[in-house]
């Protein structure tokens, strides 16, 4: 018996959020007296997959069929279900993402499993199996008991603290895994994929520098980009900014955009409408820079500067450069 954890790959590397899911799954396995097994689908070097061992995994099942080289939630869910059945897994864990939710849902229907998405903490496995998750876009939490035999948890970033310095160097054992693939999962044909290879993923980023209408126009974005570069941060924006085409839609952070949970979120010239807050309230630390002292975002911030972003940002960039 094992707790099965699915890890997402990005260009052959395990995503950071998935490594968190491995650490989370390993602790659940420890609570249940089981071992942690990882499933990875797609191309990856064995040495990369062995890294899951540092986060507590014992084994890694690797499905590397050429047909699975393109991300396909339907086929990946089939692989997940077959891996769970092979391992006798009663608890399946994925990290919160579009793919994680899609796979969890399809697998839950196949396995008649209770699925809880947005899990924010380790489950209470003392007797009943209870999980707590984020609801109302971070404005509240709900705790529920999962009654089904098989339980599927989709965990949010930062659901547990990981001390990277405490990780062991033990490599996981990587085994080849060949799921039965169904033709019906490959009916859709991919016409085109556009990925911004050079940019840090917002959902993976530890630091995000984000701009709003206070940046006054796309031609004034350079000071924000300079700070992001100095901090090694991803860049985001508010909804009005993407609506105005100042920045691309995939940078839109908020209730109807991307929800992020970095360690540090720096909001520049964003007033903090409740819909924007809903997308950032999972951040560990929020900094707000705005010339309006009444901007509602200051109420949600840990640190604030009332001032002109075009005067403040260069100062922060210079200070950030000196960190190295």
């Amino acid at each position, binding site marked *: 018996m094992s707790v099965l954890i699915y890890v997402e790959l990005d260009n052959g590397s395990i995503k950071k959020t998935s490594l968190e899911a491995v650490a989370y799954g390993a602790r659940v396995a420890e609570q249940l007296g089981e071992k942690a097994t990882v499933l990875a689908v797609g191309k990856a070097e064995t040495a990369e997959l062995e890294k899951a061992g540092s986060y507590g995994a014992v084994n890694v099942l690797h499905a590397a069929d050429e047909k699975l080289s393109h991300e396909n939630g339907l086929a990946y869910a089939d692989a997940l279900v077959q891996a769970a059945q092979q391992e006798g897994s009663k608890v399946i864990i994925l990290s919160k993402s579009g793919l994680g939710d899609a*796979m969890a849902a399809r697998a839950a229907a196949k396995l008649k499993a209770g699925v809880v998405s947005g899990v924010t903490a380790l489950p209470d496995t003392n007797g009943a199996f209870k999980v707590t998750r984020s609801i109302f876009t971070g*404005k509240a939490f709900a705790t529920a008991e999962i009654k089904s035999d098989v339980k599927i948890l989709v965990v949010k970033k930062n659901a547990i603290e990981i001390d990277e310095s405490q990780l062991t160097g033990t490599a996981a054992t990587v085994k080849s895994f060949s799921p039965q693939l169904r033709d019906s999962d490959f009916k859709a044909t*991919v016409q*085109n994929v*556009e990925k911004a290879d050079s940019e840090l993923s917002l959902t993976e980023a530890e630091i995000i520098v984000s701009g709003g209408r206070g940046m006054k126009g796309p031609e004034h974005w350079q000071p924000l980009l300079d700070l992001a570069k100095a901090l090694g941060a991803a860049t985001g924006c508010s909804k009005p900014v993407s609506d105005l085409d100042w920045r691309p839609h995939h940078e839109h952070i908020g209730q109807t955009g991307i929800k992020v949970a970095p360690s540090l979120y720096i909001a520049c010239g964003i007033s903090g409408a409740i819909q924007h807050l809903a997308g950032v309230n999972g951040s*560990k630390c929020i900094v707000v820079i705005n010339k309006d002292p009444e901007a509602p975002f200051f109420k949600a911030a840990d640190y*604030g500067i009332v001032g002109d972003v075009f005067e403040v940002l260069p*100062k922060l960039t210079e200070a950030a450069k000196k960190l190295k």
Partner: protein
Amino acid sequence: MKILVCITNVPDTTAKITFTDNDTKLNKNGVQYIIGPYDDYALARGVELKEQSGGTLTVLHVGEADADPQIRKALAIGADDAIRVNADPLDSYFVATQIAHIASQNNYDLILMGRESIDYNSGVVHGLVGEMLGIPSYSPVMKLDIDGGTATISREIDGGKEILKAPLPLVLGCQEPISEWKIPNMRGIMTARTKPLNVTEPVSVETMTVPEKYSLPAPKGACKMIPAGEAEMLIRLLQTEAKVL
């Protein structure tokens, strides 16, 4: 083309969330309810596709009678008829089972809904419905065109987007900018009163999860203000005090 659009009935995005009955129930007092914002996008695109194809659009909600004003609004926006499954849903699995049951009786070509509800934020109902019906599901869909029996879908993926061509039937979770939200006009509001809103009882579902209690995040501490003239100090505090650099 037969289209089914599934809508949620959720507290307005600005609603203050509190709980009653020893934190076991949402306090609905003074809360304004709306159609889920993502569902509004699905509905708007569904109405456009219906008008283009000359097909039909049914709106479906799993919930209690207090959602009827939002269902009537969807009818006013352009749905032909509505179904409400009369139940207080416990979880996503319950909702998906009800949707799949209705859909299995009616052979819809396209089942649209928001990428997630803004109350429970699970984002799994479209996937559950797709698997229960044995048809593909994709989300979040930002652009959708139908040509004959084939859909061209632009959907968001991590750090970008991908364009798919897929045969109908499909279940899709939608988000902006798939369409502009539609506001009902007076003619729509008047005709919505006469359109059918059929209420049906739920099919039985094995209990997967049982809600136990709700809680609120710990209150936020005061924001530490730093003078703009000493902005550099912020970087030091982020490193030494907040320990996030």
